[in-house]
């Protein structure tokens, strides 16, 4: 850790070829698995939160293998902050739209009045739509938490 801190100050952190290559190979598989977990969340273990944490962990892995500056170039902070809000808005917005359409909050059967699909289909699809919002929110918040912690809240220099 001491050596890491000194390397971070001198600015040549992350010259490790093996770690970078391993991360490049592993990250696509982790992201694909997070989408699998999201899509099968209805009838097997998993769902929006677990898939979001997996997606966020793949972002964290890339942020750990490279330094903060290249991580911020890869994921622009404005986009990450905005999409964490978009995730919450998708989650709450679908619930509010259900209430506006005449059902209860998050009563997905209310969508059947607008788009003609069977009520059980809408209940299944509504959960998936809400979980997409949860996944986007959780994944982006994970990366923001790591950035804020490792740079002491400045988002300028850090791990």
């Amino acid at each position, binding site marked *: *850790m*001491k050596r*890491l*801190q000194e390397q971070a100050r001198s600015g040549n952190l992350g010259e490790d070829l093996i770690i970078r290559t391993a991360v490049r190979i592993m990250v696509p598989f982790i992201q694909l698995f997070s989408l699998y977990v999201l899509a099968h969340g209805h009838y097997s*273990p*998993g*769902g929006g*939160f*677990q898939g979001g*944490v*997996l997606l*966020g*962990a793949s972002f*964290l892995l890339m942020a*750990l293998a490279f330094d903060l500056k290249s991580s911020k170039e890869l994921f622009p902070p404005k986009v990450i902050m905005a999409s964490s809000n978009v995730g919450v808005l998708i989650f709450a917005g679908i619930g509010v739209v259900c209430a506006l359409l005449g059902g209860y909050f998050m009563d997905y059967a209310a969508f059947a009045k607008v788009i003609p699909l069977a009520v059980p289909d809408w209940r299944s699809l509504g959960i998936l739509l809400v979980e997409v919002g949860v996944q986007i929110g959780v994944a982006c918040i*994970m990366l923001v*938490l*790591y950035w804020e*912690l*490792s740079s*002491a809240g400045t988002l300028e220099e*850090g*791990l």
Partner: protein
Amino acid sequence: MIWQLDLIILTMLVICAVGAITVRDLLSAALIFGAYSFLMCLLWAGMGGVDVAFTEATVGAGVSTILFIAAIYRTSRRSKD
């Protein structure tokens, strides 16, 4: 659940818990917490709570260990007391 496996995991859990609060090195303590989370994940998977075990494996052993290390990076590695 097989009681022998249960006993081994519970014993290692107690060892990890005591180790995490007695060790002086903060980085070691963070990694022992990661091992503790993984053992809890095994225990829950054995009890049939696969969903809880999944969350524990991703959040407890994966992300929170990285967040601990990011926090230690901002302070000193050895505890003073």
